[in-house]
């Protein structure tokens, strides 16, 4: 390595330094920050970055999981284990009235189901605890409307996003001023790509939920689409699950998360598979395909 190379950061080192800067800014400027922990790979990377940002002090804010009641059991176990291992306080919020009323994506449509179990639960949870800054693991490369989201995403009193009226963000200066009742969502991983996240997990040896790794799992097979059997009500009349070597590319609610056929049972194999991938990671999530621009509509209403 040349002398010059020794003082040039790699892309992952740069992204890490930027994310840590953001985490420290928010924790220092907001009275009531919280980290939304969704258990997925992005959230798990964000949690590691939070450990790094405040080391050797503990993470100075709690974790909040919005539980729809449809999360895979492996996810819930992993969540509890991770929170304990990093020594962070874990809060769980569920829209209990909607869950008790039997809300599910078959009875309603996915849009209304998400609206109640995710968006409404999130807004209620943030309100309940009085959080005014919430970290999320969203990345700009995930979806077109996310590409324009600021790192500090300002939300009005109803938790809604106005894409036409965003604050300019220059250099690394973030405007943290809000009026009472307003809040921000913060995305420390804004500039990370899916590949960066996997590379970082590999490089840092970060544990992730087993569901990301391929193994023989029972699935309802509908052409190219594999549906996990966790929620039996997704089954059609007479439909029988088959054992398929498969994995999840992104973790959502079990009724709406399709699996993919895969032999990738190690991290390098997952990354190799990703490099050959032709479909973006959200292609297997049913929710984004409801209608053109559906993510933007959800976000305007308060979805992450």
């Amino acid at each position, binding site marked *: 390595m040349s002398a010059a190379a020794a*003082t*040039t*950061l*790699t*892309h*992952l*080192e*740069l*992204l890490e*330094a930027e994310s*840590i800067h953001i985490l*420290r*800014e928010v*924790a*220092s*400027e907001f009275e009531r920050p919280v980290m939304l922990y969704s258990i997925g790979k992005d959230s798990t990377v964000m949690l590691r970055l939070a*450990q*790094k940002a*405040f*080391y*050797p*002090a*503990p993470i100075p804010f709690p974790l909040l999981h919005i539980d729809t009641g449809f999360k895979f059991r492996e996810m819930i176990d992993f969540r509890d284990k991770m929170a304990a291992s990093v020594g962070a306080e874990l809060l769980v919020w569920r829209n209990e009235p909607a869950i008790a009323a039997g809300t599910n994506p078959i009875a309603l449509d996915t849009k209304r189901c998400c609206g109640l179990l995710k968006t409404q639960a999130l807004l209620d949870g943030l309100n309940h605890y009085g959080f005014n800054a919430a970290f999320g693991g969203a990345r*700009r*490369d995930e979806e*077109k*409307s996310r*590409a*324009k989201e600021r790192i500090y995403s300002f939300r009005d009193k109803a938790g809604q996003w106005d*894409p*036409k009226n965003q*604050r*300019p*963000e*220059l*250099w*690394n200066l973030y*405007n943290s*001023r*809000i*009026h*009472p009742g307003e809040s921000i969502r913060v995305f420390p991983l*804004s*500039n990370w*790509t899916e590949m960066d996240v996997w*590379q970082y997990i*590999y490089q840092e040896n970060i544990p992730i939920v087993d569901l990301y790794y391929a193994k023989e799992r029972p699935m309802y097979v509908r052409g190219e689409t594999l549906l996990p059997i966790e929620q039996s009500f997704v089954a059609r009349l007479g439909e029988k699950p088959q054992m398929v070597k498969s994995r999840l590319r992104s973790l959502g609610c079990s009724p709406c998360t399709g699996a993919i056929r895969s032999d990738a049972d*190690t991290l*390098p194999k997952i*990354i*190799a598979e990703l*490099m050959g*991938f*032709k*479909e*973006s990671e959200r*292609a297997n999530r049913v929710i984004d395909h409801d209608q*053109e*621009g559906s993510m*933007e509509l959800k976000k305007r209403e308060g979805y992450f």
Partner: protein
Amino acid sequence: MATLAPNTFSIEAYLAEDSSRDLLRFSTAGSVDDGKSTLIGRLLYDTKSVYEDNLKSIEGKGTTAPGVLDLALLTDGLRAEREQGITIDVAYRYFSTERRKFIIADTPGHEQYTRNMATGASTASLAIVLVDARKGVLIQSRRHACITALLGVPHVLVAINKMDLVGYDEGVFEAIRRDFTAFFDELGELKPANIYFVPVSALTGDNVVHSTLAMPWYHGPSLLQLLESVPAADARADAPFRLAVQRVLRPNLDFRGFAGQIAAGTIRPGDAIMALPSRRTSKVKSIVTFDGELQQAYAPQSVTLTLEDEIDVSRGDILVSPESASVVTTNLTASLVWMDQNPLELNRRYLLKHTSRTVHAQVKSVGYRLDIATLEHQPASTLTLNGIGVVEIESVQPLAVDRYASSRITGSFVLIDPVTNATAAAGMIRDAVPVATGLRSASGPVSLEERANRWRHSGAYVELSGPVAFADDVERALFVRGAAVLRPDTASAETMAAMSAAGALVLTHTVAETQSVTVAGHHAAIASVDELIKFLEVHDILIGDSIH
């Protein structure tokens, strides 16, 4: 590793190689019809960075001929844009090649979104300025080039687009190059260090990723080849050390670490540092990270420093190399890009955020307004949305600054409207008047630390809102605690700054229905006097428990 299949063996080699790639941030700017979105779509498409489902979603849409993909649709994200057919915001895009990773800030071309262009350019190492070959250097292109230069982007790449529509004519390319070179020369000291001209067609792909046979007269690199070869980051590791303290980490009584991102330079254990604005000095004891202690760290790493001495350092202070310190000032000259619907009001109180420090500041005068198309200096008394000018600013509390030309991080700031909370302006420091060294307390018979130890607080300016009774209770409680608390009936900003700089706790009060407090840019609703005390402790103004 013996159990891995052959294809995973190669992936590990790839991962090792990939982890050493660097990152280039670049911005794009162009007029509405210059084909900026098409160019980015082309870069993504030709570097195979687009997923099939995304391609599928744009098939048969857009304004291109049947069967030809409208690549602009890959980047035009928001519904409003699809409806209006223009790009209204900054969109960030990511792609990579075997050489490096890229972050694109795709910024709007329309004049009314000049501020978004400045936003995109603020973090860019390179800017692509697009010119329509049929139209030549328009006012719009000059505006873009000027903002790019003003924001200190070190590499500017002028992409002369739509060459296919002018018959790939060398004469057209050369004429535009001549015109643009003359314009850059007029920029004087702002002229970018490196300027490149590349003839391209985003629609056909000529010279974007791949070199083309259509223009045999052009012997230079393609646009992507240039992007892959310019230095990725500002060379800041050899600059004087700068680190703005974001947070003091105190996990236990034995550890006190100063967390921040290195803005410039390199640091090693044993190096002398000076804390600004206090000018106290110490030595670095250790560089602490989650991954172990480091023997050296450099910009832009995020680290935590511990010091040999227990000097008073808090959020908003800057740690610098003592032999080449920043200027401590309350009076500075800066270029401003006005970003708010409400025009600049002279002598009105704004919040100025510089690194991790937020202070009150006023714009005292506008030197001139810059016409960014003609580069004329026009007399002006205010700046309106998207206006650019040079102004004199006075801050209530001192700042430790550098000139923007030498440091984009410690030389920049934003102004925030304290009523609407809007980000009103972006500022680039051109010059600063040093304050007389050693506020009397620093080197006088009684030090600030001694005062703080006696009074159990540092100097601060505390703005209260709420009923009069609330302010009375707060003043009484602080006084009973032993604080040097003052609540002047009338006082100028200068007087209050001087009193708080000398160690006093200065209170002001505005009558309002709801109770709140603002200190050093922190604002919070306050339910009780106890909560206010706690707030002041959390922000390191009050020290520990009350003395009796």
